[in-house]
Each structure stands twice: as structure tokens, then as C-alpha cells.
């Protein structure tokens, strides 16, 4: 057991950091917003943590709070701009946002170190990272059937129907987007601490792709999906690497395609029977009348 931890400690840490990012994306997806802007909010969290560390020697708690707050704030501001877009344009706009983030990081040299990047003192340990993931999961599990949680799911499934039930889809999406910024901001702080060095390419398109791929791979219909997805996405290549060298990324790519082709709803799908509570009453055996085909 000790051997396992020594060998895989950093893998687990990175898997959990990625899980935080994927959870951030999932929170937006909860309300039907497909966003890759997590990389941007991660950059906000990561570079603010680096700055706090370097200039003020701030501890991890302060870093996390500031990262969460800034991620939330930036996401809330951007939601005004982005959420009025039709969903596919919104997705592409978040890609553009990630591209611009790198430009901003490069030019805000004073705060970010520009192209050289900046070092960070490592102040998180595995337990902290796991605790953060657990905290987010706890919150999502509690919220799943709360007033907001049901509204978010409703907006994702059918925004017009949700609106007819009194839900304002824009508000629900804005809240989800802001909350995803909060979690991604935290994830950025964690990643900066784990890497101990961040630069303009840390929070770039690769990270954005990774987080959404992990989310979709794991499944977008339950909060456990992104965590499972991140573990598979980060962990599997490591396991492969310990057997065969050099093919881990080929495997990851191929696996992602295969899973999406054969399990389009992802690994964790609450609709699957074994996942659901047993029905309390037997379904009445009435013959189902065929729906009349009305245009």
C-alpha cells in the first residue's frame, strides 16, 4: 500500500486537480452550458495564487479563497457577455476566451511573469486536494434535488419547458457559469501548487480540451462523471506507461474515441438500471397506446 502511494501519489494528485477542473465544466453543463472557459478561470486562480505566494507569502487558505472569489467574479462578469449567445457559438466563444487568456498572461508580465512564467511554493498536499474534491461533490450531491439543482437540470433538458414552470433560464445559466468559475478558480490554485511552476501554456487549450474530454468521458448526467472521467483520463496513461513506454497518449486518444462512439452518454449514466433506486411500485401492465403522429 505504501509502495502504491509512493509510486502514484502525484498521479492521484493530478487526477484530482483535473477532476476539479472537470467538475467546474460539469457545473456549467448542469444548466446546459458547454464551456471551456474553465482554463481561463483556472489561470485567474493559478496566477493569483502565484502572486499571493510570491509577494505576500500567503498560505493556501488565502490562496484558495482568493482564487475562488476571483474565478467567481470573472465568470459572473463574462456570463453577461457570453450567455446571450446561441449554445454552439457560446462554446466557440469560450475557446476564443482561452486563446485570449494566453495573450493576457503573456502581456501582464508584471503579475504573471510573462513568457517566462512564475514559480509557486507548493502548499497543498494530497489530503487537501482530495478534501476539496470531496467538498465539491458533497455540495453537488446536496444541491442535486434542491430548488436550484432541479431548475438547472430542467433548463439543460428543455429551457422552454423550464421557463414555462417559472424558471428564468438566463439566471440559472448565469449562476451555473459563475459557480463553474469558482470551482475552476480553486482548481487553478491547486494546479499551480502542484506544478510549482506555471506559465502561459499551463492554462491553455490543452487543459481546456482535457477538462471537457474528462467530463464527457465520465458522463455529463451525474456529478460523479467528471471525477471518474478525470481519473481514467489521467490515471490510465500512467498505468499504461508503467507497462509499455511511449504509447500512452495514443491509447488515451483512441480510448476517448471508442468510449464516445460506444458509450455516448459516458461512463457514469444515471439512466442505466443498476444506477437507479429500485422502483417502489411495479409498473402497471397496461398496453401503451401509440402516440398519434401529429406533425
Amino acid at each position, binding site marked *: 500500500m505504501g509502495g502504491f502511494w509512493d509510486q502514484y501519489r502525484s498521479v492521484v494528485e493530478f487526477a484530482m486537480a483535473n477532476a476539479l477542473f472537470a467538475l467546474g465544466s460539469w457545473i456549467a453543463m448542469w444548466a446546459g452550458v*458547454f464551456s471551456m472557459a474553465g482554463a481561463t478561470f483556472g489561470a485567474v486562480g493559478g496566477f493569483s495564487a502565484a502572486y499571493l505566494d510570491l509577494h505576500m507569502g500567503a498560505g493556501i487558505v488565502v490562496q484558495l479563497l482568493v482564487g475562488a472569489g476571483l474565478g467567481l467574479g470573472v465568470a459572473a462578469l463574462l456570463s453577461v*457577455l*457570453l450567455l446571450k*449567445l*446561441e449554445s*454552439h*457559438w457560446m*462554446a*466557440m*466563444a469560450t*475557446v*476564443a*476566451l482561452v*486563446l*485570449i487568456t*494566453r*495573450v493576457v498572461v*503573456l*502581456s501582464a508580465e508584471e503579475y504573471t511573469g510573462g513568457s517566462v512564467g512564475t514559480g509557486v511554493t507548493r502548499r497543498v498536499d494530497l489530503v487537501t486536494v482530495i478534501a476539496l474534491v470531496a467538498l465539491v461533490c458533497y455540495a453537488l450531491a446536496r444541491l442535486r434535488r434542491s430548488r436550484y439543482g432541479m431548475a438547472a437540470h430542467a433548463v439543460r433538458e428543455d429551457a422552454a419547458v423550464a421557463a414555462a414552470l417559472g424558471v428564468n433560464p438566463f439566471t440559472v445559466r448565469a449562476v451555473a457559469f459563475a459557480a463553474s468559475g469558482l470551482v475552476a478558480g480553486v482548481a487553478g490554485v491547486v494546479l499551480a501548487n502542484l506544478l510549482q511552476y506555471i506559465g502561459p501554456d499551463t492554462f491553455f*487549450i490543452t487543459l481546456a*480540451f482535457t477538462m*471537457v*474530454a474528462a467530463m*464527457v*468521458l465520465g458522463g455529463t448526467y451525474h456529478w460523479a462523471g467528471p471525477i471518474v472521467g478525470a481519473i481514467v483520463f489521467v490515471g490510465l496513461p500512467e498505468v499504461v506507461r508503467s507497462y509499455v513506454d*511511449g504509447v500512452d*497518449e*495514443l491509447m*488515451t*486518444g*483512441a*480510448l*476517448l*474515441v471508442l468510449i*464516445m*462512439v460506444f458509450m*455516448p452518454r459516458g461512463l457514469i449514466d444515471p439512466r442505466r438500471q443498476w444506477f437507479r433506486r429500485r422502483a417502489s411500485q411495479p409498473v402497471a401492465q397496461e398496453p401503451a397506446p401509440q402516440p398519434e403522429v401529429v406533425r
Partner: protein
Amino acid sequence: MDVLAQQILNGLALGSVYAVFGVGFGLMLATLGVLNAAHGTFATWGALTVLYLVNDVGLGFWPALVLGVLVSGVMAVIVDFVAFQPIRRRGGDLLPALITSIGVWIFLLAAARMVTGATTSRYSPDAAPSGSFDFLGLTLGRTQLVSLLAVAVVGVGLHTLLHRTRVGAAMRAVGHSPMAASLGGVNPVLVVAVTAFLSGAVAGLAGITMGLNTSTVNFMLGEALLLKGFAAVIIGGFGDVRGTVVGGLLIGVAEVLTAQYVSGSLRDAVTFGLLLAFLVFRPRGLFGSAASMQTVRA
């Protein structure tokens, strides 16, 4: 004044590479409904193929170029068949196809890194077009000329194909509904394959010209193209070859002028700033119609 004219010419040459790539990328987005994250790797593989044929096999540059373009095109057809076709058949939308394209991207990028050993290569001396000549008092590199020719051929050729031929009509229809395309008496599977081939082949051509212009080829070559080509498609107006060409040229000129007169570090800022501004304030771009946006939505 001369500096300005020269820089505009340089910008057009650079922009033509973006434009060619963008046309291929946009073709796949508008007609096949795939925001293809792996498209840049098609360009990379085209460039790597040509480099290999020229340097190691000793083939002439032009035959190598043709083969390189073919390789990229075939690669796109295979990728479409393996990763996008199953999702399209399910009626899935942009999201799952984007994710499988990310899988393909990881795969092809890693493969490119493996075969190149992550090193940067150059063409053997005199194996590829090089040098420059005088053009209306300005200096035009032969490689730049190749890019400008490429954008002319691709732009005019593809626009004509899409709007003047039966296959082209079927290709446009496939984007809106595969059913409609088959009604026109054209086999939809074939139309999809042709579209994928063209979009990959054009990307390969862009990769090759990019390699010529920077005179270096490495496994990351296509990544910058992907981002700039994406910007060209959105700025120019989605699903319109002319728009994408104009968008690409515009980006090229804007980048070169920014680097010349403002700051080299702001090159990307201009392009991506324009990209975001267009997405937010004018999603249909310079030339796109509202109807062309339907393709992606549906």
C-alpha cells in the same frame, strides 16, 4: 510607405496560409457539422509527409506536395469514418463529435511527436522553393508566392465546386440534411467522404505552405494553424469560402502590421481579440448568412 506596402504583402502571404487552412476547417464545420480539434494535425501530417519525401526519399518538391495533400485528405476521410460518422449516424450534435475529435487530436499529435522525435526539421538546401524576386518594387519570396497561389486555387476552386456543380450542391445540402442530399440523386456517403477528403487535403496544403514559409517543420506545426484558421472561419463568416479567405487575409495583414507598428507580442492579441469580438457581437461574421448558422445548430 514602401515598408507599409511590403508589410501588407507579407501579411497577405501569411494570411493566405491561414485562409487556406480555414477553408478546409470551415468546410468540415459547415457541411459535416464537426468542430474538428484534430484538423491542425492533418496539416502537420501533410507537411511531415512532404518533408520526408523530399529529404529522405529524394522526390521532387511538386510531386511530393501532391502526395502530401493526398495523405492529409485520406487521413481526414479515415478519421471521419472512424470518429465522426458513428456520431452523425446517431444524430448527435457538435459536442460528442468535438470530444471524439479531441481524441483523434491527442492520437495524431502524439503519433507526430513519436515519428519526429519532437525535433524540428528543415528542407534540404535547394530541395524546396526558396529565394525571392522583385515584384512591383517589392520583395516577394517564392514560398510566399506559393501560398498566394494556393489561396487563389483553393478559394476559387472550392467556391466554384460548391456553387456550380451538382456534387457541390449535394455537399452543401449534406450540411443541412443528409436526406435532402440523397434526394438529389447523390449518394450521401460518397458526398460526406468527398467533403472530408477535400477539407483534409486543403488543410494539408496549408500545412505544407506553412512549412515552406517558416522553412521548418515540427509536430506542432498544425496547432497554430488550427487556432488561426478557426479565427478566419468565424471572422469571415461561417460556411462561406469567400468569407473565410477574406477573414484569413485580414488576420494575416493585421498580425504583420501589429508586429511592425505596435508590438510583436500583440500579434495574437489582435487575432483572438477580433475572434472573440466577432463571436460575441457579430456571430455570423463578415459574410455569413443567418441560414448558414443553422447547419451547426441542427
